[in-house]
């Protein structure tokens, strides 16, 4: 393992009874990288994230986070992590501020430091006026913002974001994108699972596509698109859309000229890569 590697996963296997959710997954995520995990529902993204974030045990393999084996030195590994789960996981019997204080205390932050940090992040996310309200008095989007603040309070070196923008309105989503970009610029390693392809495309340094518990493609978005063919020809005929991919625009144009119907020539995007490799649309069940 090199100093440049923030997360090293080797031969990860996680079974739920007869079902193998993660099947011998190998992955290295570099320090400071913004890594995107794409895959159909049930492909193993969230399970992998739960294993890495120590929330779920696993059957085989090893996981190292920031140089610490998570089974041998779980506390040291957890100290460098922040996790934003798919489902908002705030304690609904407490206020937003109490949730934040509680979270900061779990990370052993002193009173002064945690109050400053809560104030700083709450202002940034526009949560100030809601801090002393009970969790359930807030809408889903605001609860999500509060959960994000909780995960970021202790300045984690590696941040796991499991579909962080699902359920957020466009303003909150853009705000979070800005936060992600800013954390990335500051050197935080970020692992993101998402159903929004444009999110992965615009934010991620590298993308891993996971299907049936294995990584089936791993590269920077541009290279992944080139592997499929960087130019896509999209044809709509009799209400059905078909796609064909080419290495150059000339090849694509020549092919398009031979077609009838509604034809579009465009750059290949990650959604094309995803569908081509998994045979499923984003959000489909594996």
């Amino acid at each position, binding site marked *: 393992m090199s100093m440049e590697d923030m997360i090293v996963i080797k031969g990860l296997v996680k079974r739920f009874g007869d079902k193998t959710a993660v099947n011998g997954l190998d992955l290295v995520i570099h320090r400071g990288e913004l890594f995107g995990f794409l895959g159909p529902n049930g492909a193993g993204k969230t399970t992998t994230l739960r294993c890495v*974030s*120590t*929330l*779920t*045990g696993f059957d085989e393999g090893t996981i190292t986070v920031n140089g610490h084996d998570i089974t041998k030195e779980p*506390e*040291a590994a*957890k*100290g460098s*992590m922040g*996790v934003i*789960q798919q*489902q*908002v*996981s*705030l*304690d*609904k*019997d*407490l206020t937003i501020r*109490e*949730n934040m*204080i*509680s*979270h900061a*205390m*779990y*990370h*052993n932050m002193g009173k002064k430091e945690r109050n400053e940090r809560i104030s700083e992040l709450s202002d940034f996310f526009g949560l100030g006026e809601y801090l002393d309200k009970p969790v359930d008095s807030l809408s889903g989007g605001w609860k999500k913002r509060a959960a994000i603040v*909780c995960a970021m309070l202790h300045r984690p070196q590696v941040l796991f974001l499991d579909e962080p923008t699902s359920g957020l309105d466009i303003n909150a989503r853009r705000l979070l994108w800005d936060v992600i970009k800013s954390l990335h610029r500051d050197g935080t390693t970020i692992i993101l699972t998402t159903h929004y392809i444009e999110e992965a495309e615009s934010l991620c340094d590298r993308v891993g596509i996971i299907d049936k518990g294995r990584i089936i493609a791993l590269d920077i978005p541009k290279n992944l698109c080139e592997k499929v063919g960087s130019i896509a020809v999209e044809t709509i005929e009799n209400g059905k859309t078909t796609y064909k991919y080419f290495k150059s625009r000339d090849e694509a144009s020549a092919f398009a000229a031979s077609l009838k119907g509604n034809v579009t020539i465009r750059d290949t995007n990650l959604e094309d890569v995803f569908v081509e490799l998994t045979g499923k649309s984003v959000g489909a069940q594996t």
Partner: protein
Amino acid sequence: MSNLLVDAYHVAWGDMMFMKHNFWNILVMSIMSPLLYLIAFGYGLRTGQTDIGVSYVAFVIPGIAALSSLSSSFGSTATRMNVQRLYYKSFDEMMMCPLSLSSIVIGKCMLGLTRGLISCLLIYALGLFLASDLALTPLVVLCIVISCITFSLLGMAAALLSKSHQSMATLNSLIILPMTFLCGTFFSVSSLNPVFQAVLYCLPLTHASETIRAAALPDYLEFPWISLAVLIAFGAAFFALNLYLLKTRKV
């Protein structure tokens, strides 16, 4: 050691805030059932002297205190953890933080300990007015504290093992309810046949009842040090079970 206790305090802080928000509600709930037991069993069903020479009220109050330690400590820890784990998912958040498993177990049983103590001490304080034979000694307090810790740890194990509210209710019906009525809270276990006695001595509430009662009536009963040791052993076993459940993530 100090880190362990500081972390345990951090774990317990949220539960203490929960208690602060619901203080009056908790206070009423804490006293209601022991009071009803006292009225129904202490005054309604039986009056007069017992075999050991004290009034039945003096005999039954330590038993009700033991019972309160079970119901309050077990119930409050189990219910809150069950909700945090299965519905709020806030327990997951805590599990992803750099806290030792021992500090999580200690911290999460503090709510049950506190509520159990409130409940026991309220009923015991009432008992001191009603029955002059009862003594308030450090040993009484010690036995109550150990009993509350033991049942709070049992509540945590129940919450970690249950997969839903329904399984929690089943566990209550199969373990807690029989203990409530059979473990020497309202009668002396020694009055039963030996086989039944042997079964009841396998349950922690029997030892909680016997120790609290003997500590409360020092002029009438010899203190059962073996029962105190068994109660502590139950507590240690529940602590170890919780550690195992958290460590193996079989939860």
